[in-house]
């Protein structure tokens, strides 16, 4: 009974997850294909663009030499052929070679990704904790005007462009106080300022979603009951309100990770950090097709996997989904 129940439950979870995994693979493929088509639809010659990165005003326009380079990078065949070769190579983990630098794309992405991930994780943590703090503060703040002021603060984080907040942070904490480096990717200290810069907009979005959910939950009958039972304020907030407000926040975390994986270009430029964002900007400017596609694939995979995990977490956190899964398991167990 136990083992058949376990197998049944596994089947139900598989039925829950498999379509989502399929969806995940489809998203990656579709992103790759659309990106491939878009970049090939752009006017201009990627070979010339890549050569001009190194060649500057001496970039050759001699057709003979250009043809030789084009053949070297496999850009001489028809587009569908390039698409097929590149796409099949993906499954071998081969993202191709950068036309501008000659380095393997997987190496470039592998080098840049940890730097971006460090900043993104730090920004997520700081943003989430900040949003949590502000939400709790706003929830317990009295009188009403104080609460109204507190609620108005976090949206500033999204109203001020990262470009400006980054430069202000550098001026104060690097050049003024000398606490953190203004640039580079050396150690934790170099993550702090760019992380905070990114945490501002991320935290602001968290706050909007999270506080709405909290106030919603706070106004619900079960909180009224909890208060009436005479539970302490903290018990009400942490045990009842925050727990119920968690679900929408998880959704937004998923979206934020996707944004952070690719949306760090401005911060990386201001803080002169190596990372996925800058890699992408450089690659787009140099029409470096293989690098752009490589980054797109990696970001798409990250995004899809995070979404998958978030979906799976619903199954654990949301009692409605959880019961549907477990009761489904029970039903199969009974029929078995």
């Amino acid at each position, binding site marked *: 009974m136990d083992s058949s129940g376990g197998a049944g439950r596994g089947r139900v979870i598989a039925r829950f997850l498999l379509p989502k995994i399929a969806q995940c693979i489809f998203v990656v493929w579709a992103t790759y294909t659309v990106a491939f088509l878009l970049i090939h639809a752009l006017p201009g010659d990627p070979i010339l663009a890549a050569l001009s*990165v190194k060649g500057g005003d*001496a970039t050759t326009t001699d057709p003979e030499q250009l043809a030789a380079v084009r053949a070297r990078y496999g850009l001489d065949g028809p587009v569908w052929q390039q698409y097929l070769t590149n796409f099949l190579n993906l499954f071998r983990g081969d993202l191709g070679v950068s036309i501008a630098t000659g380095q393997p794309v997987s190496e470039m992405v592998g080098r840049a990704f940890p730097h971006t991930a460090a900043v993104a994780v730090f920004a997520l943590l700081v943003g989430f904790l900040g949003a949590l703090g502000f939400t709790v503060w706003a929830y317990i703040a009295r009188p009403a005007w104080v609460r109204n002021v507190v609620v108005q603060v976090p949206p500033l984080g999204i109203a001020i462009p990262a470009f400006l907040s980054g430069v202000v942070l550098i001026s104060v904490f690097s050049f*003024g106080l000398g606490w953190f480096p203004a640039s580079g990717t050396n150690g934790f200290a170099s993550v702090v300022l760019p992380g905070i810069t990114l945490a501002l907009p991320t935290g602001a979005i968290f706050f909007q979603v999270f506080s709405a959910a909290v106030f919603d939950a706070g106004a619900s009958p079960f909180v009224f009951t909890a208060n009436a039972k005479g539970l302490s304020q903290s018990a009400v907030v942490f045990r009842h309100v925050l727990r119920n407000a968690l679900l929408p926040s998880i959704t937004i975390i998923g979206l934020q990770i996707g944004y952070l994986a690719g949306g760090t270009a401005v911060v990386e430029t201001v803080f002169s950090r190596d990372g996925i964002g800058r890699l992408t900007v450089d690659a787009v400017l140099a029409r470096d097709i293989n690098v752009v596609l490589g980054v797109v694939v990696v970001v798409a995979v990250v995004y899809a996997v995070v979404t998958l995990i978030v979906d799976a977490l619903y199954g654990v956190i949301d009692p409605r989904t959880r019961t549907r899964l477990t009761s489904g398991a029970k039903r199969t167990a009974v029929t078995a």
Partner: protein
Amino acid sequence: MASPHTARMRVLALPVGIAVAALTMAGCASGGATGGQTAAASTPNPDLEQSIVFALKEDPKCLDPQQTSMTTALNVGRQLVDSLLDQNPDTGEIVPWLATEWSANTDLTAYTFTLKDGVTFSDGTPLTSQVVADNFDAIAALGASASLANGYLAGYAGTTVTSDTTFTVNFSAPNVQFAQGATTMSLGILSDASAKASAEERCAKPVGSGPFTLASYVPNDSVEIVKRAGYDWASGLRTHQGEAYLEKVTFPIITEASVRTGGLQSGEYDVIQDLPYVDESRFTTDSYHLYAKANPGVPNSLIVNTTKGLMGDEAVRQAISKSLDRDKINVIAGSASGKAPTSVLTSSTPGYTDLGDVLAHDPDGAKKLLEGDGWTLGSDGIYQKNGQKLTVTVTAFYAQDVLEAAQIQLKDAGIDLQLNMVSSGDFFGAIASGNYEMLGAGLTRTDPDVLRVLLSSTSKSRWGIVDDPELESMLQKQAQTADAAARQKIVDDIQKTVAEKAYVMPTLETVQLHASRAGVGGIEFDSAARVQLFDAAVTAK
């Protein structure tokens, strides 16, 4: 290359610069009051650590000086790699470096060199004639990946090694610029192993015989070079001999201009590359040194394709050139250390001739030319003829501010200038297809032969398309004239013709502008306006 990023950075730098200026003034204003200065020769202070932090403006991407033409990369590469010859940036005189002697045959198709004894590369291998031959062969094989170096080696037909220290470089056609090219880092000499390595390997770790060696290069992050112990073959143009003064130079890559200027003020960086022109006035105090040098070659210009649009009409071209107020453009978009162009070569190029009168602002002359050519001023303030408006288009990928200044001036003169700002790739795409009326750009080279590269119909990557047999023959003749005085006469005539017929209409001399704190001295420019750090030293805290 004439820094396409500068203009973009300048646009961004203005608002941010203001913000940073306000904050730094409040937080950590630095002292000093009067006139900035350029550093003279300096001696290191023995009590101070001889290491500096030199903030670069962009990722150098490829450190191999034979392959890259990017100023940032060459500023690093110059320290790692020596050249056969050196050139005095003030006089244009060519002097020995790795080669103690050199001579050319009368028709400039063979150059014979004698190498200095005892020169070694940083991997320990010696410099021999065969290594030089392998270097030049490798450049030829790199093709499009080493386009600038191949330009200097135009017509290369192999190197004959006669002994370990003597060799002859042969050309299939006269190559007048080769001696000059041999002074540039584009023809700098790499070690035997480097010359034979793949293009990508050489980009990441070139090995030369220079006064510094590469310690590390992390793309998009930083480059670090350290002093080469035992170096003893600096060119006679340097102020000292023996090893470099600096033990270590760290080049963090700081793309944001306001961070570079802020870091120089706070002391985080000792030297910064590419100080935005708008910030120049903040660094003219005694606390800083400014380093400014105009790129040699053809200044930022409008370069015409006479087969397109109205550009075949000489009166129109001349009217455009006369309508440009170059002094004003320099004030609007240039460096305070620079000056308006006065020829189709910049004032820092060997062979430059002052043609200030030809390029003077002459609105009345322009008006006369156009009206004599049958153009009448329309009600919209733009000239027209037979229902056709006097509209011309310029294609460019940097220095939009310069073109906008020109656009305003031309509008006042009744000429409608349309700007077509594109990416660098599309700019060269336009050159490849010949589909443009004018190009807006400069061409950085250290020899007047740059005009042949730019305008001759035999030049493989020419920018200016003109049908002028007389000019063509002059361009070819200067390239085959060994006698300096005779060649200079031809070069004078070429500049005059090109300026008068307005094939090239200069707009601005692009200035390389760097800054350091006052306690760092001895930073110099070579003849190509790239930084030479051999004599640099820390002189004060």
